[in-house]
């Protein structure tokens, strides 16, 4: 399946939605802004030309979304004006335009060279994501020093900073993108956009590697299917005011309902094959507002794929 972003008018957009669903694809996210619709969709590879033709017919724009279906944490040392808003917000927004669900995390004690540290809660929260992007400052020395923050993080890490460095100089990260660092203006220059493209490419590569890893031992059920079933069988999800009540991860989803109340409802969701959710997933309480983190078990554990 290939992820795309559909940007078009409200008029007749249901036709596109129906086509995608008929082809066996999924609507991952849909935002209606007055008369405009923005949707993140997954389309089976063989049917891409059909979908493209439909988008052309509706005069909509269809662009590839390399980061769709993944949740990325954008981590800044603090939420103070030294790091916000320009750089962090612009980059987070840029990642969203590439299809990812992006959460910004400002650390409680991420500042300084000697002082910087992560709390246990922050570590857990970052580990709930598919990848983490750390935004650091302008000095080589400080960036090297602050790699100590990566110690307990299990998800792949991409680092962005000011100096042009090799990833090997920043131990613990998968990729390093230079040329950004601390800045107090909006990222509008051509070279800055190019640096943000480099971040998207780096995260895209990291996610592809993770997907390849999951392919070696496939998930018992695909995350978009879990999302579709939950939306069908748990009507309360419609009442969640979050723009993405079920947020996809590469190996599961974050369900934005309280864990204690809805744990059993989710586990009792039944697939057409007769398999119950509890047989193929494990749930845990999220560090984000007590939501539900759902992780799909691999085939090696359940013995089947539906």
């Amino acid at each position, binding site marked *: 399946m290939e992820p795309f972003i559909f940007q078009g008018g409200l008029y007749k957009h249901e036709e596109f939605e129906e086509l995608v669903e008929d082809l066996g694809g999924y609507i991952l996210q849909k935002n209606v802004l007055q008369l405009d619709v923005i949707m993140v969709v997954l389309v089976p590879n063989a049917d891409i030309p059909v979908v493209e033709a439909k988008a052309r017919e509706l005069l909509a724009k269809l662009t590839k979304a390399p980061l769709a279906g993944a949740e990325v944490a954008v981590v800044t040392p603090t939420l103070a*004006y030294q790091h916000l808003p320009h750089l962090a917000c612009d980059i987070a927004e840029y990642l969203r335009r590439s299809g990812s669900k992006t959460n910004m995390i400002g650390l409680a004690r991420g500042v300084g060279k000697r002082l910087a540290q992560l709390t246990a809660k922050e570590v857990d929260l970052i580990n709930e994501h598919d990848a983490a992007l750390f935004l650091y400052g302008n000095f080589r020395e400080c960036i090297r020093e602050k790699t100590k923050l990566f110690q307990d993080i299990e998800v792949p890490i991409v680092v962005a900073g000011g100096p042009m460095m090799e990833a090997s100089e920043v131990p613990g990260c998968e990729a390093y993108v230079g040329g950004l660092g601390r800045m107090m203006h909006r990222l509008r220059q051509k070279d800055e956009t190019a640096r943000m493209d480099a971040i998207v490419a780096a995260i895209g590569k990291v996610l592809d590697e993770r997907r390849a890893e999951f392919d070696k031992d496939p998930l018992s059920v695909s995350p978009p299917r879990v999302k579709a079933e939950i939306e069908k069988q748990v009507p309360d999800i419609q009442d969640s005011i979050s723009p993405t009540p079920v947020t996809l991860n590469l190996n599961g989803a974050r369900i934005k309902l309280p864990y204690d109340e809805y744990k059993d409802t989710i586990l009792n969701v039944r697939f057409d094959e007769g398999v119950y959710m509890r047989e193929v997933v494990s749930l845990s309480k999220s560090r984000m507002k007590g939501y539900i983190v759902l992780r799909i078990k691999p085939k090696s554990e359940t013995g089947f794929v539906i």
Partner: protein
Amino acid sequence: MSDLAMEPLEVFTVESEDREGAAKYREVISDILSDLNLVRAIGRLKVYIDPKAPVFIIVGLFRPGLAKLTLGDVADITSVEEGLLVSIREELYASKAVGKLWAKYGRESVIQTERAAVIVPLKGDFAKQMDDISSIVVYDPREDLKKNVIDALLRITPEGFRVRKHYIDEHTLAFIASEDPIKPEWVEMCKKLRGSIGA
């Protein structure tokens, strides 16, 4: 060179062993100074950063020539039966000017005829009293400047450098910040930098 001949930001350097970082930091500082409208107010600025120590030092020289605004500049003062009528032309300074007159003459003896017009009682010589009232300062740009400079310094300093030592007066500023207690050699360094820009 006399101070009056100083051009806006004729000297602006950022020194550091990490040249790439220094160049980036120069951008950060000029962005902040233009955000806070300080480019024209600061004449010379020197910054020294050592990320290894770690220490951050900034020294600067203000450009002179910022005039205070007095009540005489923003109000018409005329004689009326009850005393002196002060009517403030510039709405922006109205509340501040009325407040100053209250403080000077007492709230009960000042008659407010409009939002921006008050009558104060005549006391002694009219001409002398008029001069007195005219010279009341309603806006001192240097106060604003000082506030903005402090704001700018806090934005410029690397986050986490919470140990600070600063010195600001009408003409100069000096600021040292670090994660660790300030060392005497940093103070020496700061003095040297101040000397180099003529402060």
